[in-house]
């Protein structure tokens, strides 16, 4: 009972903080928060593959980019397209891309899966870079119109104000996060974990392993597309840079830092990385050095990431308090 009340209080506090955030912290930190939220969703969708299904992808940026380009191209070429359909187009274009790729990639796993994605990711990057007529190459597509959020006859909110966009982005990303969380809690989510732990056994139990992987793959791709779509709207720009290898490394770093094993680990990781990047870019331009060192240190010393570290600390704390209690009892 108290647990339930506690949960409700937590939710109310969270919603109030999120709602009041732009008022308290100003424009700069509001925009920073939107970036964080975008990468948090991107990382969580990546973790559906790595953490839940055991598939490491070095090319997740292609779905991010597909979502961004889908939205940007749709808004540029379709007159009077409203906001939610534009985001939906981003989701669909990333989903379709993953549908096209999945027959090829679900047959492999482990290193081959990672390498295939490295290659496909580079292929997409090169396509976006070379096909200047469609994608604008390195300059990208910028300055496309951003429609207001409108439900006809009810409400129309201008999305050009950063504060309004913040609320829109938070709601869309929050809903995506909730759907993905729900997805992992279904029986299907359990099969996913089973595929990660012992694919052969899942096969013997009568579940279809490649098909399971394919579904997870498409879902992960589609939500990376949502993240990319929001990112394109937020920047009002999408360029071939959004598809490059560093964009693919971002969710890997965030997931590793946050902790592979848990659903919210990547969110925590995204927050930590965002903070570190924000701090380091003030002092040095060597972002690669910092990211590389973080990856090495995390892998060598804290392979389970921040969530794993918190768990260890909690256990130690519990053990100590239990020890103290036993001491008090004895005395």
């Amino acid at each position: 009972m108290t647990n339930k009340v506690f949960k409700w209080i937590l939710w109310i506090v969270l919603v109030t903080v999120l709602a009041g955030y732009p008022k308290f912290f100003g424009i700069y930190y509001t925009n920073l928060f939107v970036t964080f939220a975008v990468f948090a969703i991107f990382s969580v969708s990546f973790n559906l593959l790595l953490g839940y299904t055991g598939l490491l992808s070095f090319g997740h940026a292609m779905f991010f980019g597909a979502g961004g380009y889908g939205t940007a191209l749709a808004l540029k070429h379709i007159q009077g397209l409203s906001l939610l359909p534009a985001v939906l187009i981003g989701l669909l274009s990333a989903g379709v891309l993953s549908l096209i790729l999945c027959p090829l990639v679900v047959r492999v796993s482990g290193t081959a899966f990672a390498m295939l994605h490295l290659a496909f990711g580079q292929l997409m990057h090169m396509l976006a870079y070379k096909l200047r007529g469609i994608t604008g190459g390195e300059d990208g597509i910028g300055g496309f119109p951003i429609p207001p959020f409108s439900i006809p006859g009810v409400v129309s909110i201008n999305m050009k104000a950063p504060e309004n966009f913040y609320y829109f982005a938070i709601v869309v990303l929050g809903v995506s996060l909730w759907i993905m969380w729900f997805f992992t809690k279904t029986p299907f989510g359990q099969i996913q974990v089973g595929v990660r732990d012992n694919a052969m056994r899942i096969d013997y139990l009568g579940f279809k392993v490649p098909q399971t992987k394919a579904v997870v793959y498409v879902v992960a791709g589609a939500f990376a597309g949502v993240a990319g779509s929001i990112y394109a709207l937020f920047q009002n720009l999408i360029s071939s840079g959004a598809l490059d290898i560093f964009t693919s490394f971002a969710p890997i770093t965030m997931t590793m830092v946050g902790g592979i094993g848990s659903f919210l680990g990547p969110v925590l990781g995204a927050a930590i990385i965002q903070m570190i990047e924000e701090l380091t870019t003030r002092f040095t331009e060597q972002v690669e050095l910092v990211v590389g060192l973080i990856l090495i240190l995390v892998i060598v010393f804290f392979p389970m990431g921040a969530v794993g570290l918190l768990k260890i600390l909690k256990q130690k704390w519990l053990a100590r308090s239990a020890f103290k209690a036993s001491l008090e009892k004895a005395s």
Partner: protein
Amino acid sequence: MDPKTAMYVAQGIHGLAYGMILFLVASGLNIIFGMMGILNLAHASFFMLSAYFSYQFLSMTGNFWVALLLAPVATAFFGILLERFLLRKIHALGHMGELILTVGVSLVILAGVKIFWGTESLPLKIPPFLSGLVSLAGMDYPVYRLFIITLSLVVLGIMALLLYKTRLGKIVRAAVSDADMVNALGINMPLVFMIVFGIGTWLAGVAGVAIAPILLVFPGLADQIGMDAFVVVVTGGFGSLSGAFIVSIIFGLLSSYGVQFLSQLAPLLMFIFMAIVLAIKPTGFFGERE
């Protein structure tokens, strides 16, 4: 001979030279993968590091041979450090950890190169005795490309001798099929792993020195050839040297003739080739495992 044939032959020589370089890099990757199961994503970074080392040695001593000898050794030293102090520690975590760790290492090398040598391209002159053209059967060939092909063949020969005629080679070949068993037979496998990792990075180093005078030395060098080498390994089959050799030569020729006929889309040819091969045989040409 008419100019058209001459052009085709010249492009063929370029393609062969590039294919051999690709094979040197890919064979290093493949030896390490075949034996330790580690796909070293920092491999191309070692290749780039060696190109920078050769620039450094060349500007210090002015002798190309010294650079050719020392730069790969220095690179191999760094490779051994990586194996001994980082990779060995996380071996228990499985392949995910190793992949991500080597990504981290490649980022650190990239940043280090930028700090020490700056971001601009460094020109490296072809040594005078290897520049120019040589006439053979009424056609002119660039000497340096021929030198690269010869060098690669020599290195290949040494590797083959090492692998098939020495005790170390025997151990390595045994370890490729079952490393645990070899370890149980009383052979110091961690040491062998270290040596093999060193040889793998040495091979990348040789390729780095050889290519430095053709391309400029710049921080993007690793991306450029690294991707090609990975595609070679995936397409040829993980751990298969003969597969890597054939695919390297095919890619070298594809890229040089591709530039001639479809300049814009030449880089895509390789990926299309890979996608076709993998769609038919997911383990690659000669690969038996994933």
